[in-house]
């Protein structure tokens, strides 16, 4: 709050944008290819990992979060933490609903 009197001047260099784009496109092709091979239990985590990596690249570079304030980071991380709380605690019910009580 105290020190922002002018608009920020960080301009992302063009090559960064293009490299990220290539990575995103490659990731898309990779995830499609990986889905055609039977990797057993690993298929799902791999697909999620690739998707997450792509999302992180978009967030950090296209959305400029790599230059952004700490508060922006907190907002993003908090929303995923909250989503995580929803997922984990709801699944806790579903995954243990039919466990026997000793």
């Amino acid at each position, binding site marked *: *709050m*105290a020190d922002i009197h002018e608009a920020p001047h960080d301009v992302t260099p063009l090559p960064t944008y293009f490299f990220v784009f290539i990575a995103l496109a490659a990731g898309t092709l990779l995830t499609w290819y990986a889905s055609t091979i039977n990797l057993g239990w690993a298929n799902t985590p791999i697909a999620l990992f690739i998707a997450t990596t792509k999302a992180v690249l978009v967030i950090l570079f296209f959305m400029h979060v790599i230059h952004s304030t700490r*508060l922006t980071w907190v907002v993003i991380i*908090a*929303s995923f933490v*909250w989503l995580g*709380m*929803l997922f984990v*605690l*709801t699944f*806790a*019910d*579903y*995954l*243990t*609903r*039919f*466990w026997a*009580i000793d």
Partner: protein
Amino acid sequence: MTSVTYHDVQFLEPAKTRNYLNVDYGALSWLLTKDHKRIGILYMVSISAMFILGGFFAMMMRLELLTPEGDLLTSGTYNKFFTLHGIIMIFFFLIPSIPAVLGNFILPIQLGAKDLAFPRINLLSWYLYMIGAFTGLLVVIIGGVDTGWTFYTPFSTQYSNTHVIGTTFGAFIVGFSSILTGLNFIVTIHRMRAPGLTWYRLPLFVWAMYATSLVQLLATPILAITLVMLMIERFIHVGIFDPALGGDPLLFQHMFWFYSHPAVYIMILPAMGVASEVVAAFTRKKIFGYTFVAYSSLAIAFLGFLVWVHHMFVAGISVYSAMIFSFLSYFVAVPSAIKVFNWTATLYKGSVSWQTPMLYILGFIGLFTMGGVTGLFLAALGLDVHVTDTYFVVAHFHYIMVGGAVMGYFAGLHYWWPKITGRMYPEWWARLGALLVFVGFNLTFFPQFILGYLGMPRRYHAYAPEFQVLNVMSTAGASILAVGYMLPLVYLLWSLRFGRKAGTNPWGAVGLEWTTSSPPPKDNFHETPVVTWEAYDYPAMLKAMGETQNV
């Protein structure tokens, strides 16, 4: 650089010049306003109307419950009435109340800002509220809804013959009003504090509004998507939550309560913020344990998200899950208790004065505590199995929502009335109102603890004859409560014309809002304040005024 001292402003004349009320005239200047103060007043009028409507349904319920037989209303109508009472009071009164009325008005001023960060979004917020409210009103007129405010499936999606989609759509829209208010507050608090106003100099009302906004932002979207899924299920007849078609009704309950439990903290946190302000002002002391009170608001906001399954203990969930959530539910009481201890410690050796805001807050502290500890009863799995879906639960949440949140709202309304309107309300009538509310409230709801413990179920229009005496007491209490609520409606309106003109700081309180005129100018301050004092710095203020504090 100008810093405002209390010595300068303590005895300023009431505003004779332009303020936010008289700077502009005409309906459009209100309906298209971007001034947070006018928007706060727009909300004040709208939610008061909804409060009266919700109260009407309550009165009808209590009248029905005077006799054991279901003789006043059919069971179907009674179902509609308790549903509408809940929906209106929660979504259209309690959740907006303090944030949208007092938060909108006071928060920017307490921050030394000219307005919120996004004034047009603030106005949009009100219009979304009005669209939601009109939708709700329309539903009431065309026949109502009977699912309970909890909309449990598959009754709400497959079997109810009432206007479920209309109602849930109204709630969906009003949810966005809530989200946008929260968004505005968060950004304003982070980015628009006056020079010198560090986080630890903020009034505790601001901390409370910040925590409330966090909950509004992080919880309400889940309600939104849940209601969308409910509407889809009902509209095209699929089975997202219907067991006959492969769905799980408990999934609805999980998602619904993920919002609706934190929602109760949206309702109570602002009232706690008001409590801190009023206790400080009417004991002329710093709040004891300021940092603890500030962080406890954040703790409540966080922990409040980890307990929702305690609404589902008997629904058929995993026993292990139930045990985890019972355990977690005990924790959420701790930060609330910390606040109560700190307010009490502030009262000790304070220079207490008994004006109406203080009366409401003293009532708040006691009644909230009772409601809170009965929550602990309910967190205990073994006990919950017996009292869930009985009047014990009804009493518990009314102690917190009415004895707590509503009294907090009335306290704030009276405390800031002079600032908002430039007029004092009539003190003795107001005290009478507070007394009637307190007595009426306890007479209404204490018997309900006993009724629930004895086994009277909720949401039934008829009951076993042995419960009649307690029910009659409860209805009698409700009548007194109704009078207690009507009084402010009358005398507050009266005060607008005939109330004594208030000066800048009629309470002699510490806070940026008490350094500007009553009513404030359109841009809140004639000059941007620079803050050099700590929150609730009564010692410094009193010294500046030449008094010594009675210790």
